[in-house]
C-alpha cells in the first residue's frame, strides 16, 4: 500500500478521492439537488449493496476458476457448467430434504467429485497441453449443458430460502429524512447479507489456508514452479486433484447461492463463465485477492450500470476489462 502510494502518487490521490466520494455518497443525507440529478438515495444504496453481494457470488465462482488456472494452467471453460450443476444438485437436495445447509454440503461434495473425476480421467492425460485442455473443457461444457438440459429441462428453478433468513433487515444507513425529521433507514434482504458474509468468510479461510498452512505452501510453490515442486518429492498429482476438487466444489456452492438469490436455468452457465473470465482478467489470473477485488468491481459495475444506464450496462463491465488490459495486461493484483 505504502509502496503503491510512493510509486504512483497521482493514481493514489485519485483512488483516495474516489473512495472518499463513495463514502460520502453512502453515509451522508443527500441534498435535494443531488437527488434531483441522479435519483433517490435508496436506489443508489440498493445498487451498491446488490453490487457488493453479487460480487460475493462472483468471487465464489471465480476463486475456483483462478485457483485451478493458477496451479494447473488449465483454463476451465466448463466452470460455468460446474456452477449450474451445483445449483441443480442444491435444488434437488433442498426440495427433497428441505434443508438449505445440507444442500450446500451435498452440492460441494457432488461437484467436487465431478472435478476429481475430470482431473483424473481427462486433464491428467494431457498435462502441459494448454490449448488442448481448453478445447476439451469447451467440449465438456457443451456435453454437460445438454445433459443438464435433458435431465432438468428448460425451467427456472429457485432454491427455497430457509425461514430464518427470509425477510428484510434494517441497516444503519439513512436513505432519506422524512418531513417530520425522522430518518428512514435502508431495508435489505437478510439472505443476501448472510451470503455475502459467508463468501467473505470463505475468502478469508482460503487466504489463511493458502498462506498459513503446509498444504497452502505446497500449492503456492506449485503456482510458482510446478516442476521444481515435483522434483522435491511432493505428490503433485494428489495436490492437483485436491485443488481441482476445491475449485469445482466452490463453483458448486456458488451454484446453490446463485439458485437462492437469483434462479438457475440453462444459460446461467455461460453467464457465470463470462463473469469469472472478466473477474479474473481484471483481478489477475491465479490470484485469490485479485479475484476478490475483480468480483467486487464487476459486481458494482454491473449493478450500478443496470440502474443508471440500463441499455449500456454490459458496456461498463466490458470497458473496465479493456481498461485493465490496456494499462495492466496481467491484471490488477497479479504478481509478475
Amino acid at each position, binding site marked *: 500500500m505504502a509502496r503503491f502510494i510512493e510509486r504512483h502518487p497521482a493514481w493514489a490521490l485519485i483512488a483516495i478521492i474516489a473512495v472518499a466520494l463513495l463514502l460520502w455518497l453512502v453515509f451522508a443525507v443527500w441534498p435535494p439537488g443531488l437527488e434531483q440529478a441522479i435519483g433517490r438515495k435508496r436506489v443508489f444504496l440498493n445498487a451498491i449493496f446488490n453490487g457488493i453481494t453479487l460480487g460475493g457470488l462472483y468471487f465464489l465462482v471465480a476463486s475456483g476458476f483462478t485457483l485451478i488456472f493458477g496451479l494447473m494452467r488449465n483454463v476451465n471453460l466448463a466452470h460455468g457448467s460446474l456452477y449450474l450443476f451445483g445449483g441443480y444438485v442444491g435444488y434437488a437436495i433442498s426440495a427433497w430434504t428441505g434443508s438449505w445447509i445440507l444442500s450446500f454440503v451435498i452440492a460441494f461434495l457432488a461437484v467436487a467429485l465431478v472435478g476429481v473425476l475430470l482431473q483424473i480421467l481427462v486433464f491428467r492425460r494431457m498435462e502441459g497441453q494448454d490449448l488442448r485442455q481448453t478445447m476439451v473443457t469447451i467440449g465438456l461444457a457443451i456435453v454437460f449443458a445438454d445433459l443438464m438440459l435433458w435431465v432438468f429441462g428448460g425451467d427456472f428453478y429457485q432454491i427455497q430460502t430457509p425461514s430464518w433468513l427470509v425477510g428484510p433487515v434494517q441497516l444503519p444507513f439513512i436513505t432519506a429524512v422524512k418531513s417530520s425529521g425522522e430518518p428512514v433507514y435502508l431495508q435489505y434482504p437478510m439472505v443476501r447479507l448472510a451470503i455475502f458474509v459467508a463468501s467473505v468468510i470463505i475468502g478469508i479461510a482460503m487466504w489463511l489456508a493458502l498462506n498459513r498452512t503446509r498444504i497452502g505452501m505446497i500449492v503456492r510453490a506449485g503456482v510458482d514452479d510446478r516442476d521444481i515442486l515435483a522434483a522435491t518429492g511432493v505428490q503433485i498429482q494428489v495436490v492437483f486433484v485436491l485443488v481441482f476438487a476445491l475449485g469445482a466444489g466452490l463453483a458448486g456452492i456458488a451454484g446453490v447461492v446463485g439458485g437462492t438469490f437469483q434462479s438457475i436455468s440453462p444459460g446461467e452457465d455461460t453467464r457465470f463463465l463470462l463473469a469469472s473470465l472478466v473477474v*479474473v482478467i481484471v483481478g489477475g489470473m491465479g490470484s485469490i485477492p485479485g479475484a476478490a477485488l475483480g468480483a467486487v468491481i464487476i459486481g458494482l459495475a454491473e449493478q450500478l450500470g443496470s440502474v443508471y444506464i440500463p441499455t449500456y450496462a454490459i458496456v461498463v463491465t466490458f470497458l473496465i476489462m479493456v481498461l485493465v488490459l490496456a494499462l495492466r495486461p496481467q491484471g490488477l493484483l497479479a504478481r509478475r
Partner: protein
Amino acid sequence: MSLTQLHAPATAVERPRFRAWPELNNPAAWLVALILLIMPLIASGFFLIEIFGTTLILGIIALSLMFLAGYGGMVSLMQLTIAGFAGYMVAVFGVSGNANISLGWPWWLATPMALVLATIFGTLGGALAVRTEGIYTIMITLAIGAAFYYFTNQNWAIFNGHTGINTVATPHVLGIDWRSDIPFYYLILAVAALCYFAVQYVSRAPFGLALQGVRDNARRMAALGFNVNAHRVAAYAFASFIAGLGGVLQVWNYRQISPGSVGVERCIDILIIAVVGGITRPIGPFIGALIFVILRTFALDVLIKFGLDGNRFRLLIGLGFLAIVFWSSDGVIGLWERWRRRQARSPSSTAGSRHG
C-alpha cells in the same frame, strides 16, 4: 521467405506456379470445384442453400478462425461475433423491416460500410487480445463475444434488443434477385472461393510466412527485427474482413439477425467447425462446416429413427468434438492423412513425403 522471392520472377514458367497453387495439380480439387459449379443441376433448392450454401458461409467464418489459429497460433472465439457485427451493420445501415432503426442506405453503400466497420471492430478486438499471449487469447475473445451477445440483447436503440432486426433487404442488381436460390448459391461460392484462395495466397506471401514464424517462435522473430504485435494485429484485420464477408452473406441468407445468431454457443460452433475440419489447411473449415451442417440438419431424424431423443443434437456435436480433440490434433484432415500414410506405407515402403 527466400523461397518465394526466388520464385517470384519465374511466374511465367509453369512449375513454380503450380507449386504456388497446389490445387491446380490435384485432380481431386478439380473434381470438387466441378461438382460445386454444377451443384444447382444436382441439388434442389433446399439442399442448395440450406446445406451447401450454409456450409460455405459457416466455412468462410471458420476459415477466418483457421487463418488466425493455424498460421498465427491465436485461437479467437470472436470470429462469429465479428461476422454477426457485420450482419447487424448491414441491417442497421441498409433497408429492413425495422424502419425506425435502419438508415435505408442502398446495398452498395451499406455492405462496404459494414465490412469496414467489422474489420475495424475485429482489429480493435485483436489489438486487445494480443496484449496478452497464448491461452489468454481464448479467454479475452470469448469475453468479447459474450459481452457483444449480452449487449445486443439489452440495447434497443441500435440492435433492437432480443427481437433483433427482421426482413433485411437483399440486393437486386442487373435485374437479378441475388437472394433467389441459384444466384445466391453462386454468389456464396464465389466469395468462398475468393476467401479460400486469398488465405492460401497470404499463407505463402512474405506476410503469411512471417506470421507463421511469429506463431512458432515469437521471440526469435522479434530478434530478427519483425514487429510481432503488428503482424498479429494485421492477421486479425485480415481475418476480420473474411469473417465480415461471411457475416454479410449470413444476414442475406436468413434475412434477419438477432442476439441468438451471435450467442456464445454459435461462437463455439465456429471453433468446433474449424477444429473438427482441421486448422492446418484452409480446406479444413469447409470440411468441418459440411459435417456440422449435415449433422445439424439430419441428426434429429436419424436419432429418432434409432429410437433416441431427437433433441440431443448438441450432445452428439459435443461428444464428436471431444473425440476429435482426444484422438486427432488436426481434425478430420489429420485422420485422413494418417490413414493415407498408413495405406502408403503398408503395400510399398515408399512413405509419403507430405508435410503433416
